């Protein structure tokens, strides 16, 4: 399948102070296939927002190219850009609803731009509000709604003209956990039922783990790692990706935690990675139950990521040092192991 969005050495420079320039996006090569949900993750300032805004041509590359639906954004005129944007929906962290328009008015706005006649507009707005589940709020103004309701309106507005690409810029970051779940389920449903390609910017692991098929990790303007969510997070190749995974998952004890653990568990502390490999997990249990070494679970947890197990468990191992060495070697043969204190 041909990618619906392609970045080729795409670079975006912003003029900085004193004639210098700042590279927000630096020679990015990235393909996004139709119908997938891709997460763009990274620390703030990594260039995620600029990268995503290059898809709907709110930012044009200063060098390289971005191709969306077969159109090279840098080659489009004002009219071409407007047509492209009308076919790429976008939802925002702060919702960005028109305070002067009702819920129905907000959702109708892109249809007005597209020149839909009044009666078709009305029918489409009703359909969209029904789809996102806020039909009864049609006549209210945005400031009368809760955060979750506002984002539903934002999503309905973004979907109005049936775009085949939907961009979500931290769409759930301003919402509480429960509402986040609702909005994520809605995005998932849009992807499944309408086949919409979705690109989400996020720093929340929950967003990536619950809806993304693929993930691109950004650092200082570059996409340093990209691939299926499970592969990237279960086996990060780049130090920055590892850092990100650890910081958002807090899947291994921090130095402070290690210190506290140390007070009660003076033995050797070993963190064992648990991944999607039932054979290895069974083997781990066997190794750990070896009689010469006493093992105590002191930290960690296993959760699901892309519907597969993912996590770490930290053990205190005590007993004969050589036996522990042998055990660690055996564990290492089956999964990633790190001795964090000895």
């Amino acid at each position, binding site marked *: 399948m041909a990618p619906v969005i392609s970045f080729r050495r795409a670079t975006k420079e912003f003029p900085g102070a004193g004639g210098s320039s700042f590279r927000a996006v630096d020679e990015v090569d990235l393909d996004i296939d139709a119908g997938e949900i891709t997460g763009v993750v990274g620390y703030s300032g990594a260039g995620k927002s600029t990268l995503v805004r290059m898809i*709907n041509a*709110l930012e044009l590359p200063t060098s390289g190219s971005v191709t969306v639906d077969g159109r090279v954004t840098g080659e489009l005129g*004002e009219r071409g*850009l*407007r*047509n*492209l*944007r*009308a076919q*790429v929906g*976008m939802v*925002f962290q*702060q919702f*960005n*609803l*028109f*305070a*002067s*328009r009702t819920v129905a008015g907000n959702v109708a*706005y*892109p249809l*007005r*731009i*597209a020149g839909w006649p009044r009666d078709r507009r009305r029918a489409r707005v009703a359909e969209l509000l029904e789809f996102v589940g806020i039909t009864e709020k049609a006549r209210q*103004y*945005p*400031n009368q709604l809760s955060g979750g309701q506002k984002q539903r309106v934002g999503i309905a*507005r973004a979907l109005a003209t049936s775009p085949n690409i939907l*961009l979500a810029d931290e769409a759930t970051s301003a919402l509480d956990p429960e509402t986040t779940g609702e909005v994520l389920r809605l995005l998932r449903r849009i992807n499944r039922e309408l086949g919409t390609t979705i690109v989400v910017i996020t720093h929340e692991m929950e967003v990536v783990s619950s809806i993304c098929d693929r993930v691109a990790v950004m650092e200082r303007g570059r996409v340093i790692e990209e691939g299926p969510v499970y592969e990237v997070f279960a086996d990060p190749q780049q130090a920055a990706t590892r850092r990100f995974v650890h910081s958002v998952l807090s899947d291994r004890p921090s130095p402070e935690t290690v210190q506290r653990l140390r007070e009660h568990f003076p033995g050797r502390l070993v963190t064992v990675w648990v991944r999607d490999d039932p054979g290895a997990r069974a083997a781990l249990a066997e190794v750990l139950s070896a009689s010469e070494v006493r093992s105590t679970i002191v930290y960690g947890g296993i959760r699901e990521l892309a519907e597969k197990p993912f996590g770490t468990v930290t053990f205190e191992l005590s007993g004969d040092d050589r036996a522990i060495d042998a055990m660690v070697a055996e564990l290492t043969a089956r999964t990633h192991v790190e001795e964090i204190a000895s």
Partner: protein
Amino acid sequence: MSAGSTTATVLAADWDQLTPELWLSFQQTVYMVVWTMLIAGLLGLVLGVALYTTRRGGLFQNAPSFGVLNVLVNIIRPIPFIIFITAVGPLTLLVMGTTIGTRSVLFPMSFMATFVIGRIVEQNLVSVDPGVVEAARAMGASRFRIVWSVLVPEALGPLILGYTFIFIAVVDMSAMAGYVGGGGLGNFAITYGYQQFDWPVTLVTVVIIIVIVQAAQLLGNRLARIALRR
């Protein structure tokens, strides 16, 4: 007029003559203020939108245009209006054919008010959330469309209050315009009140002006509240 006992009769006689004069002055003031508000209201809106959109990061970002407009506003706005009227006299003559009369002062009044309104409109547009403009751009709205369908409606409440504020400044201007033959309540108060040492005439004029201003403020507040009830 020196004897206290005759003052009352003199005043009573005065009002018989003055009332038609006052009514005419009132009409002249309304004429000057209404036309200035219409002309400068529209031109000032255009100027304010131009200032806002040509600034850095604006929809029509254009540093030279913004620079010129900005400097122009900063030069013209602080000139005391009474001096401004005489300073643009030659231009007024060129445009209106005369520098005297209620109609001709519409030129300096609209000129000055345009620049004052321009700045106020600009300041009110700055309060519009840039995210909303970005959302409209992301939907493929043209830049002109964003101006009239997003920027102005989103800032409508503050804009109405801004225009109300300007209305009062324009009433003030119209009083000074009287000095160069513009007529109006200001001229009336000076001619029949101040110069005749007839304080009650001045007072009556002031009360009328206060009533006009209060009515405008009341209407503006009410409209703004309707616009903000969202």
